[in-house]
């Protein structure tokens, strides 16, 4: 099983959310998710400035096998998107937790993160699958 960083929270739909020092939340998909998807070939990024609610489909990752929706883990405004993924979606395969981040969001209610799984909880989830 891959190493799951304990500095962030996880959704049971396989996104991670990292609360950074400036109050911004960085979002990506887990290493487990990229492994299931296989080689990534396209990422449809959200728009900067877009308002999203927790649970909204706001991005799509496509691998050689399938297209999968990314759900926003929190409510807020999209602040930045990882444009490096436009020409290098494989960054998600190589570095799901760092270089492969997808977007950042300014949360309107940071306590929404409290409902998410911690690293141990996510580990249990993937083991049950």
């Amino acid at each position, binding site marked *: 099983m891959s190493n799951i960083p304990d500095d962030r929270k996880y959704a049971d739909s396989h996104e991670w959310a990292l609360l950074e020092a400036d109050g911004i939340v960085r979002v990506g998909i887990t290493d487990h998710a990229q492994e299931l998807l*296989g080689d990534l070939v396209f990422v449809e990024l959200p728009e900067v400035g877009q308002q999203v609610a927790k649970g909204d489909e706001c991005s799509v990752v496509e691998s050689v096998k399938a297209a999968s929706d990314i759900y926003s883990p929190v409510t807020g405004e999209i602040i930045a998107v990882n444009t490096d993924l436009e020409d290098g979606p494989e960054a998600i395969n190589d570095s799901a937790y760092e270089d492969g981040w997808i977007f950042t969001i300014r949360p309107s209610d940071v306590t929404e993160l409290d409902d998410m799984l911690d690293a141990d909880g996510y580990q249990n989830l993937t083991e049950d699958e």
Partner: protein
Amino acid sequence: MVFACRPFFENIKMTKKTILNSAHRELGARMVDFGGWDMPVNYGSQIDEHHTVRQSVGMFDVSHMTVVDINGLQAKAYLQHVLANDVAKLTRQGKALYSCMLNEAAGIIDDLIVYFLDEKNYRLVVNASTRDKDIAWLERQAKGFDVKINEKPTLAMIAVQGPKARQKVCPLLPERLGLAAAEIKPFSACWHGEWFVGRTGYTGEDGFEIILPEDKAEGFWRQLIEVGVNPCGLGARDTLRLEAGMNLYGQDMDESKHPLESGLNWTVAWEPEARNFVGKQALLAIKEQANSDKFVGLILEDKGVLRGHQTVVLEDGAQGEITSGGYSPTMERSIAFARVPANIGKTCKIDIRGKLKDARVVKPCFVRQGEVQI
């Protein structure tokens, strides 16, 4: 995200296993349910597996496919009745032919390869997912013919594909067969005992499909690994066949579709006129009407990925549908097959999640022998 978009992520139910199942698991393959069989979709990177076949050599376990021998005095007459292509074209021992098997309405029951062993003996290789209905149909059509339908469930099948396939395989074959296999021409086969080697495949590259006794399969698989042949999964097999312009049964055609709207006109033998194969009358009527949809290739000009069931929008607003689509590792862009109205121009739009993207219309054959054809 949700992993339910394609059957790749279905939970493994009570599935059938090939004799190489534990060998795949040992190699760390990601296994999926493929038409009721527990099969490897990839071992590592699917894109690397794709490139290894185009540039060097890779191998696939295709033991789930069904081998059926047709034996008897009237084997030839029977196959001339049951197949849309004409086995009379096969005059050299070992020669192979690709054909559709149609129902009375000209719907495609399956596509298959038939090998000519001699006038009284032919071998068919049919799809795994259609096994039961194929056997039932073959049996039903056999009434009145002096033939026996003999399924061979205890044979394994390994496809070794790529420009280096033949040089890797021949030295590993039982002695005399290796010498024979080195000599056979494309789309021909040779055999010795239960070992059967066809210079055929589903990738657009040179190579062999080797049918062999189940108890020899794992040893042969391991020998191939030792000489540097990389195992590849069904994922790479799908992108390779898509690039090569080869149809996949169940996606690009099924019983509700006929060969003329599936890009398979070339597989229908209209001559000699006297030969009356199953589905011929219906197909002739369809041909007369001349309003069949057309089967084309598409290249996505924008970013994104073409997938089966996306809508194709023509300039006049008429619509068609993508049957198979995906990412082409060789061309580094998305390609597809589509069934569209015959008046389609050189470009069209594809509806991807509500956005219309530009695509170019081409012949459905993108890559052969390592070379881009477009």
